[in-house]
């Protein structure tokens, strides 16, 4: 342990014998506030506040606020969301509500019928965007979301949540372009896989047919 006098330049003197003017600290305080007052008139960086509606503090492009759903081309059919409910489960305050859309036979259409997020519950943590495996939900940068409608106005449905891929691209170009590239690659892969699958199925069918024929022939 090494003993040292207190380092701050303006702390009370470390040698008790030294003469200081009583009240020097008071005058120093006045000097600091006086300096701040004078400089507040011409030094912009001194100011603490901005005049909000007219001027706004710059918002970082990484700023996240409220989630939105991405669609490609068509707001309804192009929705990337498959209503898998992962975000619903992972959401810490449980503010997401999803209902899967089914056809008449009860077969899943892999599309949300209802996708609600309660703004008054959502805490903008971004976990939904993080866990989504379908690149479907991302964090928005919109922050002026106040409304005078306490209930309806704060419940965001599909219509208000869905935003186009172009919007995403504009909002977060880096992230969106990466996602786009990946999706494109995935799609190509998928298409190739599908083509291969079809080819395989065809081949299988043919093989089956051939086998059956062979069998029939045997009988």
């Amino acid at each position: 342990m090494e003993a040292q006098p207190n380092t701050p330049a303006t702390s009370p003197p470390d040698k008790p014998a030294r003469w200081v003017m009583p009240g020097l600290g008071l005058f120093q305080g006045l000097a600091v506030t006086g300096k701040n007052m004078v400089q507040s008139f011409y030094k912009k960086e001194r100011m603490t506040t901005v005049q909000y509606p007219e001027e706004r503090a710059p918002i970082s492009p990484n700023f996240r606020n409220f989630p939105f759903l991405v669609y490609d081309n068509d707001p309804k059919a192009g929705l990337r969301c498959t209503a898998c409910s992962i975000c619903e489960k992972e959401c810490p305050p449980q503010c997401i509500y999803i209902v899967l859309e089914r056809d008449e036979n009860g077969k899943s259409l892999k599309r949300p019928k209802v996708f609600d997020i309660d703004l008054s519950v959502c805490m903008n943590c971004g976990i939904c965007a993080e866990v989504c495996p379908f690149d479907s939900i991302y964090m928005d940068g919109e922050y002026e979301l106040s409304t005078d409608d306490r209930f309806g106005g704060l419940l965001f449905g599909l219509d208000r949540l869905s935003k186009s891929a172009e919007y995403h691209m504009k909002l977060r170009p880096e992230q969106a372009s990466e996602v786009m590239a990946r999706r494109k690659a995935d799609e190509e892969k998928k298409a190739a896989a599908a083509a291969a699958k079809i080819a395989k199925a065809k081949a299988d069918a043919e093989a089956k047919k051939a086998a059956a024929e062979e069998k029939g022939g045997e009988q």
Partner: protein
Amino acid sequence: MLPLAAVISEPSLFSLEHLPRLPQRLVELLLGNFGAPEWLVSIAGFLVAAGTVVGVFLGGFALLSLIERKTLARIQNRIGPNRAGWFGILQPVADGIKMLTKEDIVPDKAEKFLHLLAPILIVVPAILALGVIPYGREWTPVSLELGLLFFFAVGSLTELSVFIAGWASGSKFPMLGAMRAISQMISYELPLIITALGVVMVSGTLSLPHIVEQQNGGFWHWNFFTPWGFFAGILFFICSIAEANRCPFDLPEGESEIVAGHMTEYSGFKYALFFMGEYLGLFAISALGITLFLGGWQAPLPGLGFVPTWIWFFGKLAFVIFLFLWIRGTYPRVRIDQLMRFAWLCMIPMALLTLPAAGVWHFTGRGLLSWVLVVPLLLVPWVIVGVIFNKRLAAATRTYTFADG
């Protein structure tokens, strides 16, 4: 019966120097013109003169409430109110409307009548005290021979009204606030009066206009620029901070401790009245300090006589009030026992010291000899106090060690 043309052609009526008296003179002349009896004329003139002072200082109150917020905002690197009107000039109006339309809440346990009486009683003495101050060569609303005594007599009513406010609210924080306020005001009124007595001794009069007259001829004739007056002026300023309940002596309403002190249970217009009383009291005590120590309406240099004297007065008032605001924006609040100890162990002895100093100054002819005698008389105790304080400060010095592992 004067013809109106003659009234208007009265030479002194429209000079800037006489501007504050213009309403009074106009009313007097007009009433005289219509043949009103003399007593009516004088009473009406008096009322108008009083109205002028009240109007000026109510305007000043509104302006100060804005300027205070603006100045504090600038000290804190903000802009301050700037939405209502040009540079927020209408902010006091907005505040007034807000205060007037607020619900007036009287607590259940309050003494209804006294609860109502207190805010009124706090405004009245402040206005009365403002009446005896000489604002300009031609503008002393009420020139009393005992002006200074009147000021202190009336000012002492404030304590009673603060007590009434605290007690009648029937609540605990106001009670604590009232206790603090009374002990503080009594303790600081003593040195306040004693420092003012030095001026009275030197001037030989209790009349405020005469005190101002004696300080004419440049700022080196002001009481503040004599050795005893310098110390007395500083003490007076400190005491007036305490009397006006301003930071760092704003214990009676110390909001981080006792919410708002004696004003806690007040709302709406009564609350506004408290504020008005406080600001008017601030005006009054600053005006008195200017009158006693800073030469009142006297111009700082002899050649500046062409500027109306009341402009000098209000300029000085603005400066002193700016000091109040600056201090408010800087200092934390002291504790009640420190406040009392400071009053009784430092302020009162030091204030008493200025009395012999003023006497010596007066009787040795205010020349070189006076300087030689008075300066050591004052400086030696101050140096002693400084040494004591310095020792305390040395004990307060801390050293800090650093651990590396």
